[in-house]
């Protein structure tokens, strides 16, 4: 397994997509921080508040686990589908490798690379916070002091689980469809489609309850990407509309369901490749 994992890591290390995805994330972060610095410096907003720790972590989360989640879907789909697109599954199976074992080790390598990517993005986010704060003369506070550090570790840990869940869904869809392009497109469509659907359902639910909400969690809060948002929301990231205006899903339950989706995504990938008739 170690030699297979090393080979998978080599493939990801040599693949341009690995660096492009991280580059896109970091570039957009840098752009927004530059804007925050410019707006804050002009004294026309409260940009300074997102540059003070621990609140600054919430701002970084929006990128790393928000936009990063979408990129993780696309990247994982590219990784999962590439072996079909390039005919590698045929070669590997014909060499006697375990089908599901191969796919799961590939997923493990993906998880390792995603962890490294999350940590790099987070560090860059912290550095950008300092940069933007210096630009407008705001004191950031110590990012690793006491409660701030606890918040950091907690948010990265939970956020990483959410990233993994989203990646597992993209990965599972791509392996199921046996195509990286189909996997990327389907994964993104599912992500955006669910966001739109959930938004509509939140509005309808609020209308039906005269804007008060029902006091209960709603079924659509348990959809794959919404439940991940509930986890992020539970760790202090307010990017989940449903959790903000409806009864939020308890963090423990949200985390359990998210892990369930993660396992389901991997199971779909493993079972589909195990049963596949490989003709290409």
């Amino acid at each position, binding site marked *: 397994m170690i*030699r*297979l994992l*090393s*080979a998978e890591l*080599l*493939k990801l290390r*040599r*693949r*341009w997509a690995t660096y492009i995805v991280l580059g896109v994330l970091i570039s957009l972060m840098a752009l927004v921080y530059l804007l925050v610095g410019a707006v804050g410096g002009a004294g026309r907003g409260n940009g300074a508040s997102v540059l003070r720790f621990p609140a600054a972590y919430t701002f970084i989360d929006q990128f790393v686990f928000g936009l990063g989640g979408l990129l993780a879907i696309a990247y994982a789909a590219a990784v999962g589908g*590439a072996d079909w697109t*390039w*005919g*590698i599954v*045929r*070669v*590997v*199976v*014909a*060499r*006697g*490798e*375990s089908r599901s074992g*191969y796919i799961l080790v590939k997923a493990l390598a993906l998880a390792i690379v995603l962890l490294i990517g999350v940590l790099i993005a987070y560090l860059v986010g912290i550095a950008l916070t300092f940069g933007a704060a210096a630009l407008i003369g705001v004191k950031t506070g110590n990012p690793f002091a006491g409660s701030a550090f606890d918040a950091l570790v907690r948010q990265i840990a939970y956020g990483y689980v959410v990233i993994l869940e989203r990646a597992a869904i993209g990965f599972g869809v791509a392996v199921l469809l046996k195509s990286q392009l189909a996997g990327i497109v389907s994964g993104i469509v599912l992500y955006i489609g669910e966001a739109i659907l959930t938004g509509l359902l939140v509005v309808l639910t609020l209308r039906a309850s005269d804007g008060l909400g029902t006091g209960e969690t709603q079924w659509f809060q348990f959809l794959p990407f919404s439940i991940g948002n509930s986890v992020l929301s539970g760790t202090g990231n307010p990017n989940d509309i449903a959790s903000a205006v409806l009864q939020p899903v308890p963090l423990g339950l949200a985390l359990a369901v998210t892990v369930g989706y993660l396992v389901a995504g991997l199971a779909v990938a493993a079972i589909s490749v195990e049963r596949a*008739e*490989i*003709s*290409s």
Partner: protein
Amino acid sequence: MTAGVPGAGHAESMAIVTRGLTKRYGSRIALSGLDLNVPRGQVYGFLGPNGSGKTTTLRLLVGLMRPNAGTIEVLGQPYSWRDRRRMFRIGSLIEAPSFYPYLSGRDNLAVFAATGAPTPRGRVDESLDAVGLTDRSGDKVKTYSLGMKQRLGIASALLSNPELLLLDEPANGLDPAGIVAMRELLRYLTETGRTVLISSHILPEVQQLADVIGIIDRGRLVREGPLDALLSETARVRVWVPPADVPRALSILAAMNAPLEPAPPGTPHAGWITVRVPADRSVEVNRLLAQNGIYASALDVSSDLESVFLSLTMGAPAATGQPLGPPPGWGEAPPTPTTGPPPGWGGPPPGTNP
């Protein structure tokens, strides 16, 4: 699908034995009761028109697909879908060679070496050397020509030092020198006891390489046997004599005790007489006619695999003779290596050094 092959008494001398192998894609039958006998230590030419079921057979042999019916034995072991380790003894190149385009040739082989059978360090370099790709092994595969990819595919098949090689159209994209080198490499492999199955439609190439031929058409094996026997079945000598002399020539050639087929009189081919004898009897045909005062103006010898193939797969009258039994020597041990490594591409294949 785990039982052995019924009635395959000579299974130990066989690298592959299938019985009643059947595969359907939906309602379309790709293979229908295929009975294949691939002897150990020889080159088996697996021929058939496009869509005849060659690649489907290879896919079944390496576990890419499940058969709907039938049994398979590979290297004396019964087929089992779950027993992936049986593949450790098989190297294969099925359909087009597949690689990661962004990795170098060497990295691609290193990645493949991490799958399947444990592969010793150094095997990657040995495999690259065997196909003459050492110099370009550091270049990305996306910069390779079709022929180089093909050679890398063969190197990939050699990685696990396999006892059995399954090669689907291995000469695709190779230049003439590459084809010669591949031929020598494969011949060398069989001389060291390995078995090679080549699926191809390049008949002259197969004719030069194969010891045994299997011809498949519409999912059925229509003929199988030693190449020499197949060629002699359809061997013929054609002579042209003045049309007026045809009746007398026929009576003279009757002494050869071979089927005679004169072209119909009054047609553009009038004067041609086909004598169904091996090519080496063409001198006898010519001499017999000359001794009786008939001088052939043209003589054509034909005993090529193409004729056999076309007669069996194009709806032409089937060749004479009964289906062939196992070829001579099928029960014998593989031949001892008698030559050094092939001179073409580079060093010897991995694991074959004496």
